[in-house]
């Protein structure tokens, strides 16, 4: 069983999935930040591969991408960083997922990218501008290598679309909490819960929820309805402002984890039991 499969199957609470942009705020901060948030209780870590034109991202992640590119981050650098994380005891076992737009991946060469991602120790990929219709080769390439291809489910999707995306995702899907770009929002909308319930009724695979998930209160509100919560922009804001980014990010992740544990105490059955 792969690192990712183990984590997905054994969870008895929503997984805590922090997102950090590679090479942000500084090139040499990524190893420290990722090891610190892993130690603080992150279950899966999503690492952003910066792109010049991040269509699905709000101002916070846009800023972090611009900064990372200015710092000199490339696709090859991100893969190399993942390989380094794999060699560190603190992060050797935590599933690492790359989130990046399709153009840098295609430019690198799809097969070459998937080969290098596999040997670096990447567990999964989220490509927000690659819907299932455009992803035949990509999905096949991921499957052949045992890398998770994670597709996104949007709240305005009709039922049949939710099914399409769930079937396309190889391990789990990523539900976008509201129509919009990434970015922290103050309140959880009631319709997000209704959306997640609709996905639960239709999906065969686990799914996580992200976009606008800010803190512990959102983990408590949405956690019971999903298999994981992704926190991105709120964490990036902390990395932007903190004197010690790794410590501040770890403190934030510890809070999220405590909230997730609290949801788990509400006796959410693990995914493998729910699916039987």
């Amino acid at each position, binding site marked *: 069983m792969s690192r990712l499969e183990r984590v997905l199957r054994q969870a008895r609470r929503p997984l805590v999935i922090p997102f950090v942009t590679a090479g942000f705020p500084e090139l040499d901060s990524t190893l420290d930040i990722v090891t610190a948030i892993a130690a603080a209780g992150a279950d899966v870590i999503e690492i952003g591969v910066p*792109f*010049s*034109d991040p269509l699905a991202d709000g101002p916070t992640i846009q800023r972090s991408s611009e900064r990372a590119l200015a710092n000199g981050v490339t696709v090859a650098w991100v893969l190399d960083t993942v390989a380094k994380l794999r060699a560190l005891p603190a992060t050797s076992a935590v599933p690492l997922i790359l989130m990046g737009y399709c*153009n840098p991946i295609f430019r690198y060469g799809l097969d070459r990218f998937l080969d290098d991602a596999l040997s670096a120790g990447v567990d999964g990929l989220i490509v927000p*501008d*690659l819907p299932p219709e455009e992803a035949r080769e990509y999905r096949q390439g991921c499957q052949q290598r045992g890398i998770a291809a994670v597709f996104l489910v949007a709240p305005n*999707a009709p039922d049949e679309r939710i099914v399409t995306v769930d079937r396309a995702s190889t391990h789990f899907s990523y539900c*976008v909490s509201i129509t*919009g*770009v990434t970015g922290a929002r103050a309140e959880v909308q009631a319709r997000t819960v209704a959306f997640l319930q609709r996905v639960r009724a239709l999906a065969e695979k686990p799914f996580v929820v992200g976009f606008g998930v800010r803190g512990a209160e959102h983990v408590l509100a949405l956690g019971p309805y999903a298999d994981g919560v992704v926190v991105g922009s709120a964490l990036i804001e902390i990395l932007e402002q903190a004197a010690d980014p790794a410590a501040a990010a770890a403190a934030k992740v510890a809070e999220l984890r405590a909230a997730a544990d609290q949801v788990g105490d509400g006796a959410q059955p693990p995914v493998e039991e729910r699916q039987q």
Partner: protein
Amino acid sequence: MSTSKSRSVPDKAGKFGRFGGRFVPETLIPALLELERAYEEALQDAKFVQQLENLRADYAGRPTPLYRAERLSEELGGAQVWLKREDLLHTGAHKINNTIGQALLALRMHKTRVIAETGAGQHGVATATVAAMFGLECVVYMGQEDIVRQRLNVFRMELLGARVIPVTSGSRTLKDATNEAIRDWVTNVENTFYIIGSVVGPHPYPMMVRDFHTVIGREVRQQLGAHSIGAPDWLVACVGGGSNAIGLFYDWIDAGPRLIGVEAAGHGLESGQHAATLSVGTVGVLHGARSLLLQDDDGQVQLAHSISAGLDYPGVGPEHAWLQETGRASYASVTDSEAVAAFERLCRCEGIIPALESAHAIAYLYQMAERGELRAGEVVVVCLSGRGDKDVAALAEVLGKGDER
């Protein structure tokens, strides 16, 4: 509207060969499928087609004249140069062909708010115009740098009741304005219709925007016919995203004329500061479609440069990438200074102040003439896609300095 003409491209998935497609965030997929359905239905609806025809005629001012430019012809050595006067349309450019069509679709789809991106401001003005006429809320995204270059158009949009939102990310030009418009659409997809201004973006936009502009080439066919000219030898148009060019070319794709698209070479192709995507770009994905793209080795999109804000775009419509790859059309480029020189020549010898974008197409005629490619008696139709009032202030600055040329 005779868009029922059988189409070989794009296919059902929106592909022009290996170009095109639908590379967008998932939230937009339901919206694009809904738009595609609504568009196909509208084309079958006689009322929609009639309404479009009427607005083109009575509101936009079609058909536009096809003018035989005698003095320009003479200056170029005797080829017959005809100018398709899209600059005489309401709002001063071809863009309104498309915005009328898309606004009608927005109404059909019960959307109350329209958004647009704009570079030179011509598409923004054309969108603000139809939004005012139909009583729709209108928001236009425009790069901060373009706002400075095209102040007049900003004021026009505001007069027409649109809200112009400055975009300060990235290169602060059309590319970034498009990113911002797409982000708005992702956020407000329920009540908002995104009126894309060129033959770019995810399927069905490149097809739909093309269809709304094909009236240009169809009229040229009728108008030349009235002068007993069966087919021209050359069709020439400027290409940023490529909407006026595809509009001119489309009706002639299965026929004889040579099709030439003219891109902006900016400070020169070797300078790295240009917008000549088809000439030197590589395959990539931007703004929802696979096409050619100015990008670096790591797949980051590079900044384009052109003196003309409307051509200042690092991507290009997928159908042009396909027409180039299949060899059906060829693409050339002219520099900023060649475009400015052609701008001045057209003012002086024909009494027509062209948009800087369109001046690129005129400039290419001079290149052709110099190389002896343009033979006496050959028929050339150039799309004069817009008028130059918007560029006069910026030109005064360039021409005032003199040494920049």
